[in-house]
């Protein structure tokens, strides 16, 4: 979200999900929406089928939405900046940009013009494989629409140039005056129920709650006073999750506390992550299952699931919504907040940290004896300005979209409508750089990773759901029939996929969804841990690994080897697909 924050001043979805059904053009890129966000995918289909919206899909894979698309562009993976610059080039060339808007609300226009000058549709065709004519058509359709919405997801951000990709999309949206209007905007679809909220609440190395910077001494002083623990708050930006693995291996990080995550499965170059968690001096994992990561821990703490606790989640469109306790947690398991509050008090005793007696009295929030989740929410809302007007009482009437600065504020469906959060929207002049790893003779295929609709993330939950596991029991490698034929592979056959970092065995599915020269795998299945292959090359700003592009080769597993594998295959059960 660093890209959006740099361009607009705020890194969140600018518009609401409902507006998808009230716009003229929808541009979807780097999001397999009907699989990753089925209910948003449904909105897109409704917009196309019932409201005559035009759909542009730009994706290397022939995803389901392509069937609904008016224009489908199939770029090579990792060429985002090139084709976005190309679209901007066409729009500038044909004078289709929003001149008033650009003059009044943005800065850096000259820089943009200069940077895209060389990205003629013909040059973009050479880089990305998108026919020049098609790119031009898409650019016109987007620019000429009164209202047009861009939706994107990890297919844009999980690249070593992820921040640039987002900035490039922001350039495009601002140039056409599509930001800050109803049915417009630039909308990252967040993949997890509360990514937005975790960011809002300061679970980031560089920001406190409400995106207040840890490097700002005034901010630190006010939090220091509010928390009243007497601990000097650090003004040094902390480590990003993707840096932690390396810090462990270098010996500088000795104790790690993981709450509800499974990085051994989800991290790029997962074998290195595993080694790090095995090496670390002290690892605590708090989770609802003994996940692959928890198995490496020194202490495991049992937590409550979403059905067993009260609280709030903030969805992708910044809507704060109430989560309600339905049942008691199993055994001794406790809600994460109860565990954290208990641990904090024990740590405070050992570290001689102040613990003021009562929670939420006056300006002091030092106490950790919270009566319920609501008391914590009220404290957080006092410290994060965008949440200031939200209370559990108000949430009973339905979710509220932040910013909601005061008690009677209705919430904000559309960001940047009068002015950008940073004042003027900023254009960036961007150059396309190829992905960190490209196919070559030894590793001739692109590998991309993603989700399928029946499973979620590393499968800790959905793999334990009988029905979901029956409908999608295994991870398949998707490969284009054109590529499979020379390798002598048919659907259902087991192959080995090898990258510079590891190898994974799985069965294949021959499908046109995968472009020729490209294979695809999901990261839901511990039997086929695809992230042992992926590249941990990071985006320098956002620290996001390049999970969407790396180079691999595919080998058919020979008959003799297969015989040795038989028992393992039998264990996986009957293939339902």
């Amino acid at each position, binding site marked *: 979200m660093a890209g959006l924050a740099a361009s607009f001043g705020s890194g969140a979805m600018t518009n609401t999900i409902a507006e998808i059904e009230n716009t003229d053009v929808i541009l979807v890129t780097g999001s397999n929406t009907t699989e990753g966000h089925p209910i948003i995918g449904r909105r897109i289909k409704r917009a196309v089928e019932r409201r005559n919206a035009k759909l542009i899909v730009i994706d290397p894979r022939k995803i389901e939405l392509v069937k609904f698309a008016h224009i489908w562009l199939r770029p090579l993976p990792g060429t985002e900046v090139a084709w976005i610059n190309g679209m901007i080039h066409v729009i500038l060339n044909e004078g289709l940009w929003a001149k008033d808007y650009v003059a009044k609300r943005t800065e850096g226009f000259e820089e943009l013009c200069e940077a895209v000058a060389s990205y003629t549709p013909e040059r973009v065709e050479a880089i990305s494989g998108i026919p020049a004519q098609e790119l031009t058509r898409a650019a016109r359709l987007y620019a000429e629409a009164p209202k047009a919405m861009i939706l994107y997801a990890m297919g844009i951000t999980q690249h070593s140039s992820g921040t640039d990709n987002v900035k490039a999309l922001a350039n495009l949206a601002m140039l056409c005056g599509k930001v800050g209007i109803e049915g417009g905007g630039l909308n990252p679809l967040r993949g997890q129920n509360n990514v937005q909220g975790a960011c809002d609440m300061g679970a980031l190395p560089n920001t406190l709650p409400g995106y207040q910077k840890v490097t700002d001494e005034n901010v630190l002083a006010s939090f220091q006073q509010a928390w009243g623990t007497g*601990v000097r708050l650090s003004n040094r930006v902390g480590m990003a999750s993707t840096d932690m693995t390396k810090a462990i291996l270098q010996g500088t990080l000795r104790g790690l506390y993981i709450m509800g995550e499974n990085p051994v499965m989800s991290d790029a170059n997962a074998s290195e992550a595993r080694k790090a968690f095995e090496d670390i001096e002290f690892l605590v994992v708090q989770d609802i299952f003994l996940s692959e990561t928890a198995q490496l821990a020194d202490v495991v703490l049992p937590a409550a699931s979403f059905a067993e606790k009260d609280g709030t989640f903030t969805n992708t469109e910044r809507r704060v919504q109430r989560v309600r306790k339905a049942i008691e947690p199993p055994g001794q398991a406790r809600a994460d907040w109860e565990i954290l509050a208990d641990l904090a008090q024990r740590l405070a005793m050992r570290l001689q940290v102040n613990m003021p007696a009562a929670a939420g009295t006056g300006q002091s929030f030092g106490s950790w004896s919270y009566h319920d989740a609501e008391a914590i929410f009220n404290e957080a809302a006092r410290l994060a300005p965008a949440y200031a007007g939200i209370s559990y009482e108000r949430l009973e009437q339905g979710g509220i979209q932040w910013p909601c600065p005061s008690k009677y504020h209705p919430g904000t469906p559309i960001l940047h409508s009068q002015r950008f959060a940073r004042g003027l929207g900023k254009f960036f002049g961007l150059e396309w750089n190829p992905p960190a790893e490209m196919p070559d003779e030894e590793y001739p295929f692109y590998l991309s990773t993603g989700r399928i609709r029946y499973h979620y993330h590393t499968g800790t939950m959905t793999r334990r759901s009988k029905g979901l596991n029956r409908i999608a029991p295994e991870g398949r490698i998707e490969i284009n029939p054109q590529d499979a034929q020379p390798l002598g592979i048919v659907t259902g056959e087991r192959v080995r996929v090898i990258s510079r970092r590891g190898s994974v065995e799985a069965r294949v599915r021959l499908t046109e969804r995968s472009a020729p020269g490209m294979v695809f795998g999901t990261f839901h299945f511990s039997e086929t841990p695809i992230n042992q292959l992926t590249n941990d090359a990071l985006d320098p700003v956002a620290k996001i690994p390049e999970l969407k592009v790396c180079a691999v080769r595919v080998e058919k597993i020979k008959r003799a080897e297969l015989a040795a594998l038989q028992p393992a295959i039998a264990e996986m059960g009957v293939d339902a697909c």
Partner: protein
Amino acid sequence: MVTLRTKELRRIHLTLDGKPVLARSGQTILDVARENDVYIPTLCYSDKLRPLGTCRMCLVEIEGTAMPVTSCTTPVSEGMVVHTDTANLDNLRRENLKLILTRHPYNCPSCDINGACELQDLVYRYDISHQDMHAYQIKPADFGETPWATPLITYHPRRCILCGRCVSACTEIAEVGVLAYKGRGSDTIIASTEPNEFGRECISCGECLASCPVDALVEANGQPKGKAWETKKVKTICTYCGTGCELILNVSGNKVTHVSPSRGGVNQGALCAKGRFGYDFINHKDRLRSPMIRRDGYWEEVNWDVALDYVADKFAAIKQREGADALAGLSSARCTNEENYLFQKLFRGVLGTNNVDHCARL
């Protein structure tokens, strides 16, 4: 409310069971009756779908027309005089209900939705007994093997009353459109169409099952759903992707037995396969039940005091030995705002490091 589409909104005056009422153009007789608290029985009607008019339970009489009409599909018009409660209608509805019942078994006690079944409610209301059904000695059709199912959804043709709600829901709510009627007469069933030129295929979202009034479409997991009158319903937010769909957890005892759709939320009551069927991890036997410490390679179950003191000792020792930045915390995009807030407060305000992050990047 799904109303018929019209170009302009006009006020319409009509008489409903002898009382003058005011309606808007485009409303159906059923809409107006419900607005005015006049009861008309329905089975195929769902306010989430366009009117179907298949069950024939909502018949009403309009003065000046020869035959009763279905109130769910008939728009109101100026000066209309409607009767919803006559002896003739009562008779028609009763006979109609018996015809519907010739397809549907009389085994309510073992049915999951016993007590929350729209058909059962009508049978009770119209007091239809086994004896009544002897007049209709129709041998039920033999449907053989279950004609249509997915790994998540099972269809029971013997329970199906062919109202068509599922067919509509598949198109109107799910935007998929793979269900259709198949066969003729008493052999008719609901079936999935062959993949057609649009390449549409079932995505097991379960909108069909959620719209079924009689439990003919059920979850394939075979788990009992608990008695309706012992079930607590808790409105909450889905735990999977970032869309933030509203859903209702149905709880019996200390167990989530199924998920039902709410009426609103960003999802407008719709759900995907994960949201609707992916709840059984909650009560899974693998859930962690006790804090554990690894000693000499083996897990030892301990109580909270022992576990948290142990963690506190270790963290305090590392901080004192190597400074706060030798510690780090990975918070979670799966946990609540409150928990994320506390997590960073713990690392910043108690331990004194900014080494806090979560999995937003993955």
